[in-house]
């Protein structure tokens, strides 16, 4: 295991996909060829049907009375508690980086207390400890700061939710507010930062990070409005020095020091705002978004030299976003469109080190340039095949007034493809997820399957491949991080 080099054989991507798709599609077909009874298909004799019921009654062994008594939920309970326990193990199988890369027990608990018909409080939190850091001694490297990735204990959601009449509702506290029609891209989904520590490995469900916010919502017929103030600005979670997915791995050198990120404080002056108006009509929805928030991704400010070392600090700039998002359902297809104009985004320059080395005065060193960007996305979800869902999204990020010294291309492309097949009455799910970056910039391919052993227990497994042959690719440092993983989850 583990010697496949997808990056050197990109056609393997296609082959793997084809085999996976063929297997998923063939499953019911194979069953037919093994046991088809075409006579039954043309039968229309009710006598035979009657015989079927009387001699071999298909209903006879179904006795659900006992189950009914045991399993009817109490709808009126004021206090609810639930959660799950998960054991997750990852193994890096690339020949250049073979090791145990994750062994993480995780506990997630959520509670809900219904104060009355209109108000309730919800809280959830999780704790985990990744034992692979100890086993592989990953955080023994000098300067590594991997605590956030190694262990966590804390709140996720914690909010009061209230309904005020038929029109207004509020939610106050730590929460996730998911906007936009894209499943993957962050275009008008501007409120919550994301977990970027393990690209391709983090499930979508875990990608958004909650923030302290106030949300006021109103409904008027087919229109809905959301006004949000955000009071916590942690930025997206990025991997630190020593991590397999170190965010600044390309910059690490003995003469460069990158401090811990400096996030905006929670003072009034840093309050962020976001507004969304949505109109639902037959066959579709359209949303208009305006926001004044902090960028979720950091830029580096130059703090000057210290003992011959260039010191930088990750910081977060404020950006203005105006966007439109829409989805249209037609037949078995759901067509998605999303576009946003982002003003004053601080984009890193690629001439920073050269300018510093040339002896330019520190006060004249510019690490970023503020630019406007337009990010657009088109996508489609297709559900016309039985138990198969296909999703495709293509995103273009265009930087206006682009200059050669910027660290991004004038046009950057990202393409997402996902196929999900349900089998065995939805107890087995196979999924393929493929992220394709700028031509030549690399791919991430994830193949996974999840089997429900019984209602509360599921087992998932999968593989993630990173392909980035181009040295200039952001993915290139991670090209040897291919993973196989297994997860066992017990829900309660």
């Amino acid at each position: 295991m583990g010697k496949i080099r997808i990056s050197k054989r990109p056609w393997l991507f296609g082959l793997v996909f084809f085999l996976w798709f063929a297997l998923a599609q063939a499953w019911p077909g194979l069953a037919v060829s093994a046991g088809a009874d075409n006579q039954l298909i043309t039968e229309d004799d009710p006598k035979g049907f009657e015989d079927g019921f009387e001699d071999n009654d298909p209903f006879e062994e179904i006795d659900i009375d006992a189950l009914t008594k045991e399993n009817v939920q109490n709808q009126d309970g004021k206090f609810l508690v639930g959660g799950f326990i998960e054991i997750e193990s990852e193994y890096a199988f690339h020949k250049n980086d073979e090791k145990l890369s994750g062994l993480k027990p995780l506990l997630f608990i959520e509670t809900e207390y219904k104060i009355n018909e209109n108000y309730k409080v919800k809280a959830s939190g999780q704790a985990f400890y990744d034992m692979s850091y100890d086993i592989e001694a990953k955080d023994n490297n000098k300067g590594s700061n991997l605590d956030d990735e190694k262990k966590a204990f804390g709140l996720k959601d914690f909010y009061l939710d209230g309904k005020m009449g038929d029109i207004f509702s509020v939610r106050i506290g730590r929460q996730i507010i998911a906007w936009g029609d894209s499943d993957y891209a962050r275009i008008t989904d501007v409120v919550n930062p994301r977990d970027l520590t393990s690209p391709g490995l983090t499930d979508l469900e875990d990608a958004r990070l909650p923030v302290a916010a106030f949300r006021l919502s109103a409904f008027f017929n087919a229109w809905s409005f959301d006004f949000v103030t955000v009071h916590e600005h942690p930025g997206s979670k990025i991997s630190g020095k020593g991590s397999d997915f170190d965010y600044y791995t390309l910059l690490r050198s003995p003469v460069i020091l990158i401090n811990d990120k400096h996030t905006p404080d929670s003072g009034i002056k840093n309050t962020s705002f976001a507004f969304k108006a949505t109109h639902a009509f037959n066959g579709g929805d359209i949303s208009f978004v305006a926001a004044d928030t902090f960028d979720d991704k950091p830029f580096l400010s130059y703090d000057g030299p210290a003992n011959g070392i260039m010191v930088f600090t990750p910081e977060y700039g404020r950006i203005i976003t105006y966007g439109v998002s829409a989805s249209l359902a037609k037949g078995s297809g759901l067509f998605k469109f999303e576009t946003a104009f982002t003003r004053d985004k601080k984009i890193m320059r690629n001439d920073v080190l050269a300018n510093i080395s040339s002896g330019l005065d520190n006060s004249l060193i510019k690490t970023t340039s503020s630019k406007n960007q337009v990010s657009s996305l088109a996508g489609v979800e297709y559900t016309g095949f039985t138990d198969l869902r296909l999703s495709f999204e293509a995103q273009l990020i265009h930087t206006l007034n682009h200059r050669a010294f910027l660290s991004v291309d004038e046009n950057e492309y990202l393409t997402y493809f996902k196929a999900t097949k349900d089998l065995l009455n939805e107890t087995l799910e196979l999924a393929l997820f493929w992220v394709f970056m700028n031509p030549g910039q690399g791919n991430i391919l994830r193949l996974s399957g999840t089997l429900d052993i019984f209602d509360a227990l599921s087992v998932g497994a999968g593989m993630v491949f990173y392909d980035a042959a181009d040295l200039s690719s952001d993915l290139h440092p991670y090209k040897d991080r291919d993973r196989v993983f297994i997860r066992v989850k017990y829900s309660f």
Partner: protein
Amino acid sequence: MKKLFIITILCVFFTTGFTARGFAGPTAFEVVRKMDTREDGDTLTTDTLMILINKNKRKRIRNIKNIRKDYGPDTRGIIFFLSPADVRNTAYMSYEWDDASKEDDSWLYLPALRKVKRIASADKSGSFMGSDFTYSDINGIKINDWDYTFIKENVKERGFDTFVVRGLPKKELKEKVLKETGYLKTVMWIRKDNYMLVKGKYWVKKGHKIKYFKASDIKKVDDIWTACKLTMVTTKKGKVTHSSVLKFSNIRYNTVIDDATFTTRRMERGL
């Protein structure tokens, strides 16, 4: 998400009710039309227990809260999933339009993503939550797309007189019907006193399967005939491969339900 991608409002099967009336020589189509247009109340709330049983008799259980309201000829419905734990608080909402030129509108709220998303729901031949019921079983078929003939005009079924009606897709609509329902043919047992579908047999093209349907625990709730238990069994070569039971409780018709119930915000708030 996988369990919930194609789901809809539980209404047609178990909101069946029709005041018994006299008739004289109805055609098979008239019988089916009466079955299809029975009184089902202006609003409905119910708790539903769904039991899925595989060929090894292993059972999976889902608890669902269902709310429906008629808006003239149109219907709005919302479903909240109460269990199992991994789908708790998931919600599905649909607006069903009487106008045939309009496609139904559907949204899904996934608590793990905290996101409401619109979904395309034209393919009604898919499994309803992994059960043996399909989307078209639950929502009802378009009776005008089928030709109906009597197989027998009077058969005793659990003590009641029934019509036995065969349904075949109209020739010119066969492909469309097959795409929408997955069925090649149906046979239905329809009670004469209240026009309730009490038994059925469905020939499924994909997988060459035959499904058997039975409605039981039939009684009047708020003066509306209601089947409180529905069973669908899938067989292949005469052997049971999977079966599903829907059992309804706390059924209430014609209560006051405010319009704010059928909003995406309500999906996010939950019950």
